[in-house]
């Protein structure tokens, strides 16, 4: 039986060969400031709304008005916060590893656009800054994130773009 184990020099040569690949994949650090600002803003925006929802629905904080008294609105918000959590997680992972970021951006854009349409069609009569400031501000500020997602997709630089420039 032949002895096919690698020695230390060969292992270090292999590791050095893959160093470049790792550097290319972890490209999020080389993105523009605009991209980083947009990514952080979108994360903060969704994280704060989802946190407020879960804290108030579990009675840990008081939400002003009748925000979550409507059962339909509450169940829709609950399910949407779960979906948006997973989309946001995939967005961050794809941004870090530089895999299909624009595809995830497009998916997020479509999902948020669909949410905006659904909210306007189904909940328009329930929206009021006086009675439901939390939900209303969320619904009316959601279209802004559409602009943010599109902008983020445009300014994102993947490995191919950088090599061309």
């Amino acid at each position, binding site marked *: 039986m032949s002895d096919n184990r690698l020695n230390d020099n060969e292992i270090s040569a292999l590791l050095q060969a893959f160093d470049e690949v790792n550097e290319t994949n972890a490209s999020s650090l080389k993105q523009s400031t605009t991209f980083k600002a947009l990514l952080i803003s979108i994360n903060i925006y969704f994280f704060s709304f989802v946190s407020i929802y879960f804290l108030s629905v579990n009675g840990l904080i008081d939400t002003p008005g009748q925000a979550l008294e409507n*059962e*339909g609105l509450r*169940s*829709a918000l609950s*399910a*949407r916060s779960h*979906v948006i959590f997973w989309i946001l997680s995939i967005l961050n992972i794809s941004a870090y590893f530089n895999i299909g970021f624009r*595809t995830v951006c*497009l*998916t997020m854009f*479509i*999902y948020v656009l*669909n949410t905006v*349409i*659904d909210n306007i*069609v*189904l909940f328009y009569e329930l929206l009021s800054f006086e009675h439901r400031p939390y939900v209303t501000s969320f619904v009316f500020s959601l279209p802004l994130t559409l602009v943010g997602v599109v902008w983020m997709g445009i300014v994102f630089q993947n490995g191919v773009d950088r090599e061309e420039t």
Partner: protein
Amino acid sequence: MIKKLQLSNLFWISLAINYLFAIMVVYAFLTVPDTIFDIENPEHALAAFKLTYVRAVIVTFVLIAYPIVLFKSRKYITLFTFGLTAWVVALYIDDNLVLYRLIEYPSRGLVVFLQAVRPIVIACLIWMSFELTFKNYKKH
């Protein structure tokens, strides 16, 4: 003209299934009987009706725009198909996980059938997206 696009037979079959489904959705919406609100929760039926109205308008637009984009640009049809797939999946998730307490579709035969075949339509769209993204395309 169709051969120039270098797409498989499965792609065209998937496209035909999607067109058939979309036309049936529009037909089902246009021929809604007045009795759909005679249920326990007429508000839920009204919500479903309003949502379907918006969706039917978008579907009509897609039915017209898809062949135009398909024969004009390979790059944009890939994006368009991917966006369409994402939208249909989002609708499926919305109807089954998010809005299931708010909307109620009528238990009419055609609507029940359309609800049942939705996963097949999604599978066809996913196939089309994959083929457009990964199949090599040689420009003449």
